[in-house]
């Protein structure tokens, strides 16, 4: 068996076997089947026609991450340029540079103040809105509870009215029955009445 295994492996590796060795392999049912299946795969491989690759953007195989350490990002360039400009302004004419910087700072401060005011106003509006919303929610909830309570009371009242009507009808029916009985007793033969009197 081990011999057959090494023969089969050698055959799979493409070594040429003698007719006798091939007969030996084919005499064994298991190896004969594996050989025939391997031949099917080899045939598939021989007959395989290479598929033409669909059009694709081969540049997409170069992710941009790789480039990032070679070049600065655009933000970095902008920052570097502005620092360089400020430095150049300051170095070329310190007085003028200072003046310009002060003006710039003043402008920025004004801008910040107006932005802060706007933020505060927005905050106030939001707070007011929140309060209104909370009140509305409270009213809505109260209304819902009240409506529920009224509905329940109405339901109970209608049930009670129904029970009362039913009871009145039952009583009327019983009265009628009693009257019938009374009439029967009054109109009945005397011995029966006498018999009843014995009790």
């Amino acid at each position: 068996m081990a011999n057959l295994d090494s023969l089969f492996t050698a055959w799979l590796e493409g070594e040429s076997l003698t007719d006798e060795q091939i007969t030996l392999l084919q005499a064994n049912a298991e190896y004969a089947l594996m050989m025939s299946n391997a031949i099917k795969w080899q045939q598939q491989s021989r007959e395989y026609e290479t598929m033409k690759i669909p059009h694709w953007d081969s540049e997409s195989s170069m992710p941009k991450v790789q480039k990032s350490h070679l070049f600065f990002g655009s933000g970095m360039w902008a920052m570097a340029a502005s620092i360089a400009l400020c430095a150049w302004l300051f170095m070329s004419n310190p007085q003028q540079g200072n003046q310009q910087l002060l003006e710039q700072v003043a402008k920025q401060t004004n801008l910040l103040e107006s932005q802060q005011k706007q933020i505060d106003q927005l905050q106030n509006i939001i707070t007011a809105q929140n309060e209104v919303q909370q009140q509305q929610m409270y009213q809505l909830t109260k209304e819902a509870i009240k409506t529920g309570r009224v509905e329940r009371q109405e339901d109970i009242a209608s049930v009670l009215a129904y029970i009362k009507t039913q009871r009145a009808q039952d009583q009327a029916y019983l009265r009628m029955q009693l009257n019938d009985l009374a009439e029967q007793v009054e109109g009945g033969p005397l011995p029966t009445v006498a018999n009843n009197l014995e009790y």
Partner: protein
Amino acid sequence: MFFQARETLIAKAQQGNKRAWLKLVKQHETQVYNYCLRMLSHPDDAMDLMQEVFISVYKSLPSFRGESSFNTWLYQIVHRRSVEYYRRRKLHQSLDGVPEESCEHSELETNQLQYQQHHELKEMMNNLPWEQRLVVELKFFQHCTFEEIAEQLGISTNTAKSRLYSALGKLKVHLEAVDG
């Protein structure tokens, strides 16, 4: 000089030369695509996997030292990516349940015989578990020895052999079932 040695191309691509990289891709794309197509049986999946493979190769290119051949190194990446792709794909849906490729993606229908051959191969491949599929691909389509298969897949030669034997046994069962 129109033709450059592969080593030169690799060296240039490692230095960030875009042209060299694109040439390298051009040299290997058909092989890789057909490998992906045989393994996944679906043109769109094969295309996705091929792109993932080349992105991965591009990222790993600086670490290629030439200790093994470029092809061996490339196919090691292809195997790794394909296993990852297969697992990811399997999470979403069974590959066997993938719909047939649509006409617009496939040129197979232009040749009925070619279509039948590919269809038969697809059936045979889909019948195998992924590990056995890999060994069959390497043995019969890449013509690797058992030692090379073992090296590429990071397994022992005995495991490679037993996987191939199982695959051949599976084919028997499958063909018997098909023949009735």
